[in-house]
């Protein structure tokens, strides 16, 4: 059964001479042929996330000639993305992911339309965003968004090509296919925060999303063509270390609150609350700069938290007193930003907190997110924590 890709106003679609040449390796296969290529050209696919999974997805779907691609991401490219998010170049660091991805994919295939949505997917915008697309591909990285994508797809009757990864292991399947199971049939509830480590803590081998994202791309193309046996009702498990694929049966759960016999979910909900994320306190901010007090920093260090200390003063100031941080003077930061690891939580400080606020503004633009400004700098540290430290 093919997913209908002609739900929107019909328009005459043809291939130009250049496109015939571009897609010739598709056209000579009877499973695709001219008819299949036109289906691809008419198809509208929305990618949620342009990161690790989104990279091969975007590249292969654009190359294959999917005529209309939507890219949803709110994030900017940072250095720690480049190890696996192969759509991006080093020069893209600091740029919005959707824009950088659009530039790359348009370069690969200028004949397709690419629409970018530089926004966080929310319960408020998901249905509106999904409505114009035939297939939704979930390349996100967190539980609230996965449940949101699943629910929105089910409510609109659109297939959800699912893939997820952790360290050396991946999962892929197609949810929301007519008659097939959904994500809630597989996992009725998400794990509570903190019980399962995230990729930022657990890491991920760069090639892994390349493989899982490619499987998603393949399934998306099969759905469009209506060819082969879709990955429906089957959960594909990939173990990269053992280099093994396994397949488990995935059944529609009659008790599923979303697609079962007695549905209790009929509209989108608050997914952060559902995933137990409410109550995580955001750090206090001054002019958009997250801050930490000297006392709190000391308490977190004593607790054994992994905090990287960046000192942006000058070397002669460092000699007077310091917090054993890494010294990169503010003026050298743009040139030496690659010495920093954006995946680690970082406390930036100077003498009184002014230069470090500038440093944080710069680092935010470069894609760093886990930043805290030491409020009042080393002066506050001397006052609140260590009276023996010289002040200057």
């Amino acid at each position, binding site marked *: 059964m093919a997913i209908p890709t002609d739900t929107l106003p019909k328009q005459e679609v043809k291939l130009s001479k250049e496109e015939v040449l571009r897609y010739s390796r598709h056209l000579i296969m009877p499973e695709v042929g001219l008819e299949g290529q036109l289906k691809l050209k008419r198809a509208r696919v929305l990618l949620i996330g342009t990161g690790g999974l989104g990279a091969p997805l975007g590249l292969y779907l654009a190359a294959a000639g999917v005529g209309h691609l939507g890219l949803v991401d709110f994030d900017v490219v940072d250095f720690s993305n480049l190890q696996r998010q192969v759509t991006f170049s080093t020069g893209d660091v600091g740029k919005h992911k959707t824009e950088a991805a659009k530039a790359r994919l348009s370069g690969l295939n200028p004949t397709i339309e690419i629409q970018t949505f530089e926004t966080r997917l929310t319960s408020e915008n998901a249905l509106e965003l999904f409505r114009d697309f035939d297939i939704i591909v979930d390349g*996100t990285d967190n539980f609230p968004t996965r449940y949101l994508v699943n629910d929105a797809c089910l409510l609109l009757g659109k297939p959800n090509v699912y893939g997820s990864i*952790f360290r050396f292991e991946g999962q892929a399947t197609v949810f929301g296919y007519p008659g097939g199971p959904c994500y809630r049939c*597989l*996992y009725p509830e998400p794990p509570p925060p903190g019980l399962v*480590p995230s990729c930022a803590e657990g890491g991920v081998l760069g090639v892994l999303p390349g493989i899982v994202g490619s499987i998603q791309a393949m399934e998306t193309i099969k759905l469009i063509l209506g060819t082969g046996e879709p990955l429906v009702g089957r959960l594909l498990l990939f*173990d990269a270390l053992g280099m093994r694929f396994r*397949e*488990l049966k995935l059944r529609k759960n009659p008790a599923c609150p979303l697609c079962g016999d007695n549905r209790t979910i009929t509209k989108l909900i608050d997914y952060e609350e559902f995933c137990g994320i409410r109550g995580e306190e955001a750090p206090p901010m001054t002019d958009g700069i997250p801050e930490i007090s000297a006392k709190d920093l000391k308490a977190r260090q004593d607790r054994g938290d992994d905090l990287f200390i960046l000192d942006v003063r000058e070397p002669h100031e460092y000699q007077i007193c310091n917090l054993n941080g890494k010294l990169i003077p503010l003026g050298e930061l743009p040139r030496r930003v690659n010495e920093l690891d954006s995946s680690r939580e970082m406390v930036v400080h100077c003498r009184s907190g002014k230069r470090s606020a500038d440093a944080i503004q710069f680092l935010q633009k470069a894609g760093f997110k886990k930043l805290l400004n030491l409020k009042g700098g080393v002066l506050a540290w001397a006052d609140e924590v260590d009276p023996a430290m010289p002040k200057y």
Partner: protein
Amino acid sequence: MAVKVMIPTPLRQFTGKQASIECNAATVGEALGSLTGSFAELRKHLYTEDGKIRSFVNVYLNDEDIRFLDKENTQTKDGDTISIVPSIAGGSPYWK
């Protein structure tokens, strides 16, 4: 019955990095009991405080989800494989 329990990557830190554990068990519940007996830390990751399998962890006997069989009472036979398949999201920490 000699069965093999496959341990997913996120839980291998609690099994001394072993990817699979062999044990003797007549039911799936017995196999998981034997596993959490040997690796106590696993217990809170597999079971809720009142002893139910957590809803974000699925257990399969060969390729069937035990929720659609006889749950933890599902009988095993020699050579069966039990898989623990937790939900993984990939990517970012929760608070993102």
